[in-house]
């Protein structure tokens, strides 16, 4: 088979990269770890909002929320990060805007900043908080994504995630400190949306490597 033969010529490392399933697994793992990491850090930010000073055992507060939250976030991010390139591929409109790691890093930084703002900044009321966060999230999308598919997927997943969270809260698995807007935390959908956009950005950037390798392979063939 020409595929295999060329792969064997190129060497084991490239072979691993070019193997499609392996590639997907690698990307999924990376996205998963990114999701877990972000979930832990951002959770810490949210915890800070409510507690002014920590008891000496700080590290326990990192895992103060339920144990299953970070894995869930990780899985979700892996799913989303893999989904975005797929949808781009299916719709046939590849993402063209600023496909660079620096842009991705900027996006992640802005996402963390949105979280930071939602956690640290004192807003007058919750409507203001929600509006600001919504504007920031839309701005994030406009700056780093600008694709219709990205927006649609983001909104959809944000709504879905909010619904799931709401169900969980309703069943008592999880609880907010204080629901403020129609029994949900008003910042939740915005954060979800921004997170989806960010993870999608990372996923697309990771998928770019696969494309490059495949293209090189085609050239070699």
């Amino acid at each position: 088979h020409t595929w295999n033969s060329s792969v064997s010529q190129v060497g084991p490392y490239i072979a691993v990269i070019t193997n499609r399933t392996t590639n997907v697994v690698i990307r999924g793992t990376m996205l998963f770890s990114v999701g877990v990491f972000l979930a832990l850090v951002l959770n810490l930010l949210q915890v800070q909002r409510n507690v002014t000073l920590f008891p000496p055992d700080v590290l326990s507060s990192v895992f103060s929320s339920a144990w299953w939250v970070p894995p869930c976030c990780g899985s979700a991010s892996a799913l989303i990060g893999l989904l975005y390139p797929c949808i781009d591929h299916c719709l046939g409109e590849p993402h063209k805007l600023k496909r660079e790691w620096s842009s991705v890093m900027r996006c992640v930084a802005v996402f963390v900043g949105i979280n930071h703002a939602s956690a640290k900044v004192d807003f007058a009321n919750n409507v203001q908080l929600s509006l600001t966060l919504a504007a920031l999230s839309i701005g994030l999308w406009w700056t780093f994504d600008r694709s219709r598919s990205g927006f649609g997927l983001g909104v959809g997943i944000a709504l879905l995630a909010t619904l799931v969270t709401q169900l969980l809260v309703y069943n008592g698995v999880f609880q907010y400190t204080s629901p403020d807007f129609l029994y949900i935390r008003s910042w939740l959908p915005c954060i979800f949306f921004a997170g989806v956009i960010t993870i999608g950005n990372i996923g697309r950037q990771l998928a770019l490597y696969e494309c490059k390798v495949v293209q090189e392979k085609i050239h070699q063939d």
Partner: protein
Amino acid sequence: PALMTVRERLRQNISAAFYRHGLLCASYPVPIVLFTSASILTCCYPLLKLPLPGTGPVVFTTGVRDYTIPYHEPQGEIGERPEWYRGPPVAYIQQVLVKAAVSPWDNTLVPVDVFRSPIGRVFSLLEEIRNHVYTDSSGVRSLESLCLQVTDLLPGLRRMQTILPEHGCLLVSPGNYWQNQRDLFDLDSDLLKTIHQHEPKGFHISTSLRDLLFGVMKEHTGVSLYSKKRVVTYTITIALSSYDPRFLGSLRARLKQLHPSLNCTLRDDHMVHVHFKEEIGIAELIPLVTTYIILFAYIYFSTRKIDMVKSKWGLALAAVVTVLSSLLMSVGLCTLFGLTPTLNGGEIFPYLVVVIGLENVLVLTKSVVSTPVDLEVKLRIAQGLSNESWSIMKNVATELGIILIGYFTLVPAIQEFCLFAVVGLVSDFFLQMFFFTTVLSIDIRRMELADLNRRLPAEAGMPQPKPGPLRPRETPPPPRQSPHTITLQAPAFRNLRLPKRLRVVYFLARTRLAQRIIMVGTVIWIGILVYTDPAGLRTYLAAQVSEQSPLGESGLPPHLGVAPVFPGGDPTSTLSVLPAPEPTIIPENHSNGHDSLGHITPVSPQISWGPEDEDGWKHLYLRQWPSLFSYYNITLAKRYISILPVIPVTLHLSPQEAIETRHPQDTRHQPPPIPRTPDQQNDLTLYKVAALGLAAGVLLVLLLFCLYRVLCPRNYGQNGVPHGRRRRGDLPCDEYGYSPPVSEISPLLLRGHSMDIECLASDGMLLASCCLAGQIRVWDAQTGDCLTIIPNNGLRRSSSSGGWEHRDGWDPMTMPEPDTLSGADTGACLEGAECDGYPLRRRLTPSRPALFVDQPDLTPLIDTNFSELPPSQKPPKNGFDFGELVDRAYQEHEPSPSLAFTPSPTAPQPRRPSVGDQPVMSPDPCSPGPTDWDSSVWAMELRGNLIAAGRSSGKLELWDAVEGSLRCCNEDGVSGITALAFHNNRIVAARLNGSLDFFTVETNKPLGLLQYRGAPGRGSMPPSPCYRSEDVINCQLTRSVQCAHQKPITVLRAAAGRVVTGSQDHTVRVYRLEDSCCLFTLQGHSGGITSIYIDQTMVLASGGQDGAICLWDVLTGSRVSHVYGHRGDVTSLVCTTSCVISSGLDDLICIWDRSTGIKLYSIQQEVGCGASLGVISESLLVTGGQGCVSFWDLNFGDLLQTVYLGQNSEGQGVRQLLVLENAAIVCDFGSELSLVYVPSVLEKLD
């Protein structure tokens, strides 16, 4: 359409403005960088007023008497009050400092007595304080109404529930250990155990409960079995929510009245306000660190995209500096206009950087880099700027718009952020336009220079893929990376014309000024830090040391509170059990003022009040107050507390009372027989710490040393490679001791000649060389390929016949043979050759002809067959028979050197086709004239593709340099041609008999149609006409000046339409080239002329055997200046626009100022190497040495680099040196030619 036109017009205007701006920036880089730096500093100046970030508490002291609660709004006198001193404090802290001692001390007392009864007295004091009531007209006030009421402990502190007050007043004292109940205290058999129960285990930063309850530092409490002073100190801390001076005054008076402190000097008129900064815990640190990691990743990925520039790091640094200084400027400007930052700078900083971004900078770089390379730097910058101007402006406008939208969220924090971001964006734009663009222009300029530098050697320095078949190798070639190659680094070379800057850098590097400044700065900083002790570092360290020491823990069971680092003190102390039950008597609460100062026995404890007690709160842990309040979920971050002056209480207890309060088990805690004194223990701990620190330091040093040895080469930091030939002392290194570093420049060795090279000629593209064996080789001056070989067929023929059968046109009148063999320095012999003027003539063994290295053309001339000499010239026979026999025997015994070289044209070689690979042509039977193979070449010139060779027989031959065919031959003269000048289509030949012949080269085509080949020449070299091979070339003698000079002509130069000859008859003559008319006869030398220089600018210089150098005006024939510069002959002369360079037999190279004739400096050369020199550029001089060529900076006389030509350079001097147009140098090196490419001689005109 109207909108479009407006937009287009705007766009054009912006583009034009950017273009002009780019020109400006690239034209004046240094002033603009200075200007931007100054503006950055100016804008950052207000930052000096901001407090430095830190987490240490800030202290502000006010008087007690006129104290009022500060207003929320800032008052007029801002200068006195800190910013945070607004509004009421979180709490007022009133401390009652109790010092108690059992006195006089009695030997019947056990160690527990030191603290049991003094602590026991706390309950009565508490009672007193709690029940204190102050009544006046406004009503009755008690502590209950004034104190800070606390409700709940934090959920995580359940274990402290029993100790800390959970409801009611926040009042802590050591009594809290026993729930403020005297009964529990009396029943407690082991007080220390109770106290230690709540100590944190292991290494903890946070305050321990003990410090909180006792209110003083642990080592000052005196609650220990080994206390030496036997004074117990503790405080009762009361947190008050409101300040009532009258109540507090009455409380103070009451306590003082009950327990007077006679020698107390504590001041009670100052109130201390302590402001706590926002705390950064680990939990807050994690997101912060995350954002910074993301920030650095962003910067990394951004700056990685910078490409195609000279220094990536430099530009990346410039980009980061741009962003950072724009942020600083924004903060500075905001501060200047009265806005004080309230946000946490460290938190919002990454977001600001990300918002401002590096994108514009990158776009700018990319755009500039992608402009055409061949443009001027200014234009490149301007074009790049104007190309991206529209998108940059759009970007800036969009970002400003987004931020302005953010400003209208009306959230104060976001508004502040947006304000900073707006100012930051504007200043960033300013910096991009001025700072970064200028830096970019500097970088691009550097890159262009470096690029061009690289290009030249890259073309030519490429090693030959496969050696040509025509370069036979008797010995394996030396490796290309010759260890003898010593050159200057390219950057230093570039700084050739800026040596002052270089010297400053070297000075900095040599003295390590920067490192030392940093080191001193660090030391000062650490000193300041330790001195001011902002974070309570000293206290903390001291506390840690004392905490870890087994000082207060020896009475404990090992499982309690023993730090793992220093395993607990004396196990025997726990074993010494002495059951001596004593009745427990509740003592009556009586005042014991009579005891104070009463009995002073040597062992009696002294209670003293010093100034250290006044600032008791300073000795406490930094986090004491925050942690105390944090237990009740009250944060002190960004708030302040007011500490009221302490109330001193002195308690003197009688031994009787101490004994009465004993617990039955107390006496079991007898001290060990020889208890170690605390001082010893303390010392021991200190020793341990010191030893550990020392060991760690030694280990670190060793580790670093190993790392250094691993990473750095052994000779790191030494100057260059030690080389034998030029000792370091000989190097005229500059006064800073800098000698040139090592880099790689390998000379290209052109091999093929079997004997020493005699004549060299070049027209820039081609290089012709002629060796003693008469073989002429033509090389490509760029690549070093051998193109053509014109063998001396006569030699070959005669050698194949088994003997030397030369017939030469040697004139015995001027060149008697014995003279040559005896080695007398006969100028007449050598002056004929073009390569003459070589002063050192060494004698070598005459048995090997190949070793006549310094004799230009003698070997083919030596006619050893004396029997066949014409009878008229035959010397006495017996004088030469012997030599003839010897030489014949020798020649039969060994093959002649020319036989050793057999060109193998038939050998099939896979080399790329080159003209030099063509089979050596045999003499063309239909050549224009019969060729005299037996005479040797004395002079050679190369123009276009024609080689003019003057032979000793007086023949002038014209060879085709490319094809190797003889094109023309002229035999009009009989005297040997000693010098040739080939100028346009004219050839001037100087003959041995002093006549001067003018020839004209004619083709069958008019000269105007001659094709010009190659770049326009520089200096004296006119464009070379190219003679096509099909043209029939005729060489016509147009005029012969029979008696041009009275004596043999030694030098012949032609330039600028003039022919200048120098002769042994002390005169210089100037002829016009066109009509061979003698214009001037220049007289002024008192010796034979040995060297002449003339160039296109009509500069004429001549040097003679008298060591004089004359400068002449060619137009008038007058002497401009006349200097004596050398002892002995002037061997070589070169002029630049500003100076004259001469070398003489005295091995000195002198540099003269051309206009004034003043000697600037001289360079001492090695013996015998003074003659060959050349000027590459206005400031670069190259001289030949023994096996090497050296480059000098003409402006300063610094040796720049020395290039060694080969490995075995002993005894091989560079005698001829030719500077080609492409900044290459050709020099002969024995039988080899050496092509050295100069790294950079580019003088870019800015």
